[in-house]
């Protein structure tokens, strides 16, 4: 005995009402008749039928409606008197089946256009400002010292690309929507009717692409993160997505009333990110800490012939991107510390920008010229005790602090040791 019921995971947006109705009619011709929404479209097996469906957008519906509200049933009463049997409703969608061949249209073309445009407007307009804001923040993060921190990480470089693509898509979608709306209004004024499906409506046709493009960018971003070894940074986003999917399924399956649905979603909007953040922190803290010995460090006080006592803590980080690479190292001893950063790039403008940023810091404004000591293009020993050295394809920043807690100037022999350990320009 074959299946009597099946659930299909298919969704349509408000601008594809006619496609939705056509889909239900095609299913009815195949013997599957729409019964209700419940975590998908539920169909019951029956005789093939040439049924006529109508999917309308009820203006008084709410995005939080998972089932018909009282006013939806009232509206359905009038539709029934006009020859349409009400089947089910979700959000602002109402699904009807024609029961009389002389059934009157439920909405006039103008009413249909108004209700669909009003229902869709929020979804199209609302993302624009947040996306623009995030794109702006991402771009601004590359100003000042943020440039040095981000230019050598493909993951961080892709951030602005991601948000700019989201913002551009949202903007283009918005403009297209308003242009289409004006055209549609003119058509209705002239006595025509707008087709709300891909085949008759340029905006409906392109609308899904506006969603796919950012998704595609997101997939590329994930690939870049994974290739960069930063795939773990996507863990919070992945956890959020899983929670959101589980919550959506539960809401669709159990169909709480609009008020309960709204409370659930608002509470989740606060609680889930906190939960995900907590889990992420626990995950990170549970990772075995890398114990770095002096053997792991590219440069040590011992190598410089300095007696600074035992190594207390160290930090070593190397990143690379299409623009070059960065190596940052810091070693703290009982009596002193050593801090160095090496930036490598074959693009002069990148190193110029880093050099300018460093030279604009107040602590680096005054200093001694030590170009000859380092055999560099330019080298400065600032009054803050930091060496800033520029080679054609490298920038080196190094600070050495001795037992008295004062920055120590390096001897020519120590400079040679540093260059051998850190610089490719020897």
């Amino acid at each position: 005995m074959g299946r009597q019921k099946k659930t299909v995971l298919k969704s349509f947006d408000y601008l594809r009402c006619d496609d939705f109705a056509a889909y239900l009619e095609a299913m009815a011709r195949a013997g599957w008749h729409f019964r209700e929404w419940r975590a998908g479209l539920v169909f019951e097996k029956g005789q093939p039928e040439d049924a006529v469906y109508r999917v309308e957008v009820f203006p008084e519906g709410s995005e939080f409606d998972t089932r018909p509200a009282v006013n939806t049933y009232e509206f359905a009463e009038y539709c029934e008197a006009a020859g349409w049997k009400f089947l089910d409703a979700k959000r602002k969608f109402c699904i009807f089946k024609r029961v009389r061949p002389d059934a009157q249209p439920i909405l006039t073309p103008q009413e249909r256009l108004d209700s669909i445009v009003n229902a869709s407007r929020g979804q199209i307009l609302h993302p624009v400002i947040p996306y623009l804001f995030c794109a702006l923040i991402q771009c601004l993060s590359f100003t000042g010292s943020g440039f040095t921190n981000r230019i050598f990480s493909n993951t961080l470089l892709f951030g602005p690309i991601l948000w700019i693509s989201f913002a551009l898509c949202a903007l283009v979608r918005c403009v297209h929507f308003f242009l289409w709306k004006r055209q549609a209004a003119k058509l209705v004024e002239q006595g025509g009717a707008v087709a709300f499906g891909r085949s008759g409506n340029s905006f409906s046709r392109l609308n899904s692409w506006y969603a796919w493009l950012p998704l595609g960018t997101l997939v590329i971003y994930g690939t870049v993160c994974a290739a960069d070894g930063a795939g773990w940074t996507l863990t919070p986003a992945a956890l959020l997505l899983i929670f959101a999917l589980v919550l959506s399924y539960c809401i669709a399956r159990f169909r709480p009333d609009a008020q309960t649905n709204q409370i659930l979603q608002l509470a989740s909007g606060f609680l889930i990110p906190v939960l995900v953040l907590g889990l992420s922190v626990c995950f990170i803290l549970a990772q075995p800490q890398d114990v770095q010995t002096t053997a792991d460090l590219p440069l040590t006080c011992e190598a410089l012939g300095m007696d600074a006592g035992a190594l207390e803590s160290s930090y070593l980080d190397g990143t690379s991107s299409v623009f070059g690479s960065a190596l940052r190292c810091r070693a703290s001893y009982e009596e002193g510390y050593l801090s160095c950063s090496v930036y490598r790039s074959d693009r002069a403008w990148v190193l110029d920008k880093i050099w300018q940023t460093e030279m604009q810091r107040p602590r680096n404004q005054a200093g001694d010229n030590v170009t000859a000591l380092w055999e560099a293009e330019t080298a400065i020993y600032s009054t803050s005790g930091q060496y800033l050295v520029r080679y054609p394809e490298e920038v080196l920043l190094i600070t050495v602090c001795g037992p008295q807690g004062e920055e120590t100037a390096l001897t020519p022999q120590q400079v040679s040791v540093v260059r051998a350990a850190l610089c490719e320009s020897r």
Partner: protein
Amino acid sequence: MAREPLQTLTEPMYYILLALTRECCGVDIMERVRELSHGRVTVGPGTLYAMLARFEETGIIRLTASQGRRKSYVITPQGMELLKKEFDRLRTLVSDGSPYLA
């Protein structure tokens, strides 16, 4: 010159109010309008639902009974005044046009 709300009634509005000069259940209004206009004017469920809500909000009609989802309405004195004004306006249009068009 700004138009006051509901200053001039459209045909569907006029016939709905005409239908509600007698208490009528909301779902029967569509049929009443067809009868009153001799089949010339039809009011769809979407139009009817929106207009009944608007009329009730502005005090032109009032709810008289509610049985489950079925509601009955009747025109109010304010609504009757509006309807009569519209009737007089239409009669004036006809009488002004008669010497030229009749």
